[in-house]
């Protein structure tokens, strides 16, 4: 029933033919499914930019920084079944940084949870694709989010339930780095290790930017790895745009026993669109018509 690795059987929508971007191609270790995953990520980025550009609002920066993480998860890590979103034994993915919804929607559509065409309805009246994730409206979405800091607690609940039910599924939770300012994240971090939840992996999208600017200037998080370690977590640090390294980190994280693991994924906000990269202006603003065209050319 479960579809384990969807990577290879993804439908070619005629959008996956370009060569990988230089940074990704330069990766020293070859990714597990290099071409397919990299192409998938490129397609997702195009969707993200189009969706946001089309409706005229949304959060491109944090969607693009998270894209490779999401692609790695949905096409090479998670055990899930797009034809049966409620399959009880599926791995769970919780998007705590709910404003990256466009990237999640694009990945879900590419994975087959709903038609890719539906992506263009983002944020419009009647759409199943709300501005921030809504568990009751979108197939494949596991949690409603948008108010930051709440996803890890929710994930603990799922992890405890899995343990009670003796189910083997794993819970993955994606947090923003700015989101780690929230006290609730540390309440949850403390509890997850106290409860010895080794069926839980958190990923921090460490793009160094929050809404008002650089995290180092607005609210310094460093030493971030030490923080998680002091809260009892196994810490992995990885290039969040290197799919091979990401897959490796996910493998290692799942192998940790007796405590949860966190992957601090070093990313670039706006990754893949030159003028959005490291540009805080594109945290929460849509590209203009011209910018959209330019971005799509870069991602062609």
């Amino acid at each position, binding site marked *: 029933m479960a579809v384990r690795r969807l990577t290879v059987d993804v439908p070619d929508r005629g959008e996956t033919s370009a060569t990988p971007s230089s940074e990704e191609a330069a990766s020293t270790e070859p990714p597990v499914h290099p071409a397919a995953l990299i192409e998938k990520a490129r397609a997702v980025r195009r969707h993200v930019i189009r969706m946001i550009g089309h409706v005229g609002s949304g959060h491109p920066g944090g969607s693009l920084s998270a894209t490779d993480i999401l692609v790695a998860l949905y096409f090479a890590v998670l055990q899930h079944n797009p034809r049966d979103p409620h399959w009880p034994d599926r791995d769970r993915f919780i998007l705590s940084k709910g404003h990256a919804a466009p990237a999640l929607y694009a990945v879900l559509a590419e994975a087959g949870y709903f038609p890719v065409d539906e992506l263009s309805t983002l944020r419009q009246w009647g759409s199943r694709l709300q501005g921030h994730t809504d568990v009751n409206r979108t197939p494949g979405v596991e949690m409603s989010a948008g108010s930051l800091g709440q996803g890890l*607690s929710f994930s603990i609940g799922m992890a405890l*339930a899995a343990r009670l039910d003796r189910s083997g599924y794993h819970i993955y939770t994606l947090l923003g780095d700015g989101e780690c300012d929230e006290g609730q994240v540390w309440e949850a971090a403390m509890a997850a290790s106290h409860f010895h939840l080794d069926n839980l992996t958190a990923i921090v999208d460490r793009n160094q930017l929050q809404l008002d600017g650089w995290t180092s200037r607005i609210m310094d998080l460093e030493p971030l790895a030490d923080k998680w370690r002091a809260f009892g977590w196994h810490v992995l640090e990885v290039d969040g745009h290197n799919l091979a390294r990401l897959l490796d980190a996910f493998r290692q994280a799942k192998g940790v026993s007796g405590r949860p693991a966190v992957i601090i994924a070093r990313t670039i906000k706006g990754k893949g669109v030159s003028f959005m990269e490291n540009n805080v202006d594109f945290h929460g603003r849509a590209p203009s018509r011209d910018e959209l065209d330019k971005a799509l050319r870069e991602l062609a």
Partner: protein
Amino acid sequence: MAQTASIREAYGRTLVELGKRDPNIVVLDADLSKSTMTRYFAEQFPDRFFDCGLGEQNMVGIAAGLAASGKIPFASTFAVFVPGRTFDQLRMSVAQPGLNVKIVCTHGGISVGEDGASHHSIEDLGLACSLPGFSVVVPADAAETAQAVMVAASTPGPFYIRLCRPASDVVHPAECRFQLGVAELLRQGDDVTIIATGLMVPAALEAAAALAGEGVAGRVLNMSTLKPLDREAVAGAAAETGAIVTAEEHLLHGGLGSLVAQAVAETHPVPMAMVAIKDTYAKSASAGELFRHYGLTSTDIAQAVRSVLQRKAPRGR
């Protein structure tokens, strides 16, 4: 003298009952299991009990995750910490997804007493009623508590149940049945209706008895469900008795008085008086002293009835 029984004790014992019947019942607390009485459940079912320490926000999120995974979580602490410390978590993680989370808080109101303002929960009902999809219940005694907790367990959707610290007067015969969303007629009368909730129910009955001696026939409704409100019972009371007094251990704002006033204004406008805590925080003292000082006794209810009767339109004749 009225018999008393502990509402919290009833909660703790009912949880154990539920735990025996249904393995999906799980219980959470935030370092107050000895006061909320979830400790009975913890002792019987240690694997299904999760103490979250002093992390109320995290507790609510965990409960949501458990509910999303098919469990029926009861999460407890003092009413002053949930919903106040966790409103956004209840909104985002529970109410918006409509998850099957049961919040049962003890130490509601000012009957907490000596701990003082920091521990007096006088706004929790207003907050809980601000959560679309929640059912909000304030049982009046131990028997009703046990029944309301059972009903919550078997009714899908989020609940907020507010309990109080002190043992309370028994108002219900053992055979009576709590019905969600239905006002309970405790005393018939045609001159005025007293609508009360929680610890104010016995006070309302006392007031009605006293008023009977003055020739005033007061109807008494136990409005143990604040949400969904029994608007029919309210409209009926307005139409049939022509005057309403509400009584609650809560701020004037956002609680029973404000819910009833809205229903009355939209259906059958009549004069109302509201027995509640005026816009202030209370001090430290015994529960009894606080009820006297902040105007929550049967005498205050009777006085409110007399004042509202003076404003009542003469019966159509």
